[in-house]
């Protein structure tokens, strides 16, 4: 049995994972502490979604479904906030709901933000939160046919008959856009399959980076546009700031987080490169023995 040369190449190939963890920690923490903000360029798949909201006439109805929880909020919340900001800035009617039990908590944060940034917008007239209901895609199917059968009140217990925004809403086909922000099942995919396709309603939205590749088959015919992960959220924010400079100070959550993400991704790429270099050097040595 030939002896393996245990030099620095050997050790580098078997680096203690705690060192890797520490370097990843630095890759995320330092850009955050140094406030590293990198310029964000938009892509067609996000531009298309932005342009859709931009083209809707005032008074159009947008359903914003928050189908995620706190775990993925760093990616999903900036998407929801950007779309909500954009909708209210364009004087669209915003209907907030959730297919996830953890969604209402995120909706509260979203509504707090809307209250701060749009103090002139009135609950029930400009936006409404109809909350969470169980049923996953079954719920989508039910509200596609009859919305008021499932939602008799908003989250505050106000009857839908007393909400001006709900007066001319019979079912999902009355919506001009369904924006699903999600991180799994049920989410944007179910909105496409059970509402968009069946009701011929435009559907777009955002999902986490790991889920985005699963949605590409629906783009561009069944899915209007897509924000994929934090990059997608940052792109929407960039488009929003470019069109409405008033949001330059507030709509930068995702843009600010892109710095740490960019550095962390680069560090992972470097790790994989180093790992492969050591692998090939060791393999060549083994062949020589």
């Amino acid at each position: 049995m030939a002896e393996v040369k245990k030099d620095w190449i050997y050790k580098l190939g078997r680096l203690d994972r705690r060192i890797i963890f520490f370097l990843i920690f630095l890759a995320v923490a330092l850009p955050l502490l140094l406030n590293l903000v990198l310029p964000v360029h938009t892509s067609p798949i996000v531009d298309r979604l932005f342009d859709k909201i931009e083209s809707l006439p005032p008074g159009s109805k947008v359903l914003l479904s928050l189908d995620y929880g706190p775990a993925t909020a760093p990616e999903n919340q900036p998407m929801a906030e950007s779309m909500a900001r954009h909708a209210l800035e364009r004087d669209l009617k915003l209907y907030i709901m959730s297919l996830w039990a953890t969604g209402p908590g995120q909706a509260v944060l979203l509504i707090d933000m809307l209250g701060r940034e749009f103090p002139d917008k009135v609950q029930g007239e400009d936006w409404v939160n109809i909350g969470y209901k169980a049923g996953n895609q079954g719920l989508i199917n039910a509200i596609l046919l009859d919305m008021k059968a499932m939602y008799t009140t908003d989250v505050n217990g106000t009857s839908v008959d007393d909400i001006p925004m709900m007066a001319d809403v019979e079912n999902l086909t009355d919506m001009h856009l369904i924006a699903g922000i999600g991180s799994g099942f049920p989410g944007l995919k179910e909105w496409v399959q059970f509402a968009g396709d069946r009701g011929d309603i435009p559907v777009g939205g955002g999902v986490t980076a790991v889920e985005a590749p699963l949605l590409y088959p629906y783009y561009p015919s069944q899915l209007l546009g897509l924000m994929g992960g934090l990059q997608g959220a940052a792109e929407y924010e960039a488009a929003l700031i470019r069109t409405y400079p008033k949001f330059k100070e507030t709509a930068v959550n995702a843009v600010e987080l892109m710095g740490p993400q960019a550095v962390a991704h680069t560090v992972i790429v470097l790790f994989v490169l180093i790992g492969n270099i050591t692998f090939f050097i060791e393999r060549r040595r083994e062949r020589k023995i």
Partner: protein
Amino acid sequence: MYTLRVLIPTLITFIVGIVLVAAIFIPRSPFREMDQHFSTYFDIVAAFAFILGGGNLVRMHGDKVYRKARDWPFSIVVLVGFLGTLIFGLLKLRMNFTIVPAGDYIGTGTWFKFIFDSMFTPLSAAMFSLLGFFVASASYRAFRAKTREATLLLVSAFIILLGRTPMGHYITGWLPDSLSWLDIPNLSNWILSFPNAAGQRAIMIGIALGIVSTSLKLILGMERTHLGGEE
């Protein structure tokens, strides 16, 4: 007895299945109304599933605590967390322990919101954040270009990782317009839009065909294993 236990659910499955399939292709009365009613019934059943799930959770962990089974202290944490959140949510209890008769259970100033913001959110975020560390460590150890396929996957991963951040623009943003297709973000978008979409579509069509055949077997009563007992 067995016959009835199998026959009745099979019959219900057959009727509901046929009606719902027909409703898709014939969106007219009475199928449209039946589809609407069944969807409402489904949501009511789904709400009851929460009670079933909650009851099951209490029974399982309560039993563990009672028997002092392995890791039983963790079951106490589960029970306290579950029951506490449930009671605060149901009563819509405010921080000053007054009960809100109406309004949002997660409204400002409620115990439920406090639990959600101060416990559930940071714990969920911490658990999800750990993924980043594990992905980095696993990539370093296991992502090796041992074969042609692995090399292809590796190169794609590099392009996607860099293309989904502003780093991609820094690396190849200087390229002239004639070579803009080599710009990492453009390559990243191309990979997602074409090879990825093609692969995903093939998988989805396969899954859809599987769902159709399984559903047909269930509706026609050819597949009865879910009802328990013999075939």
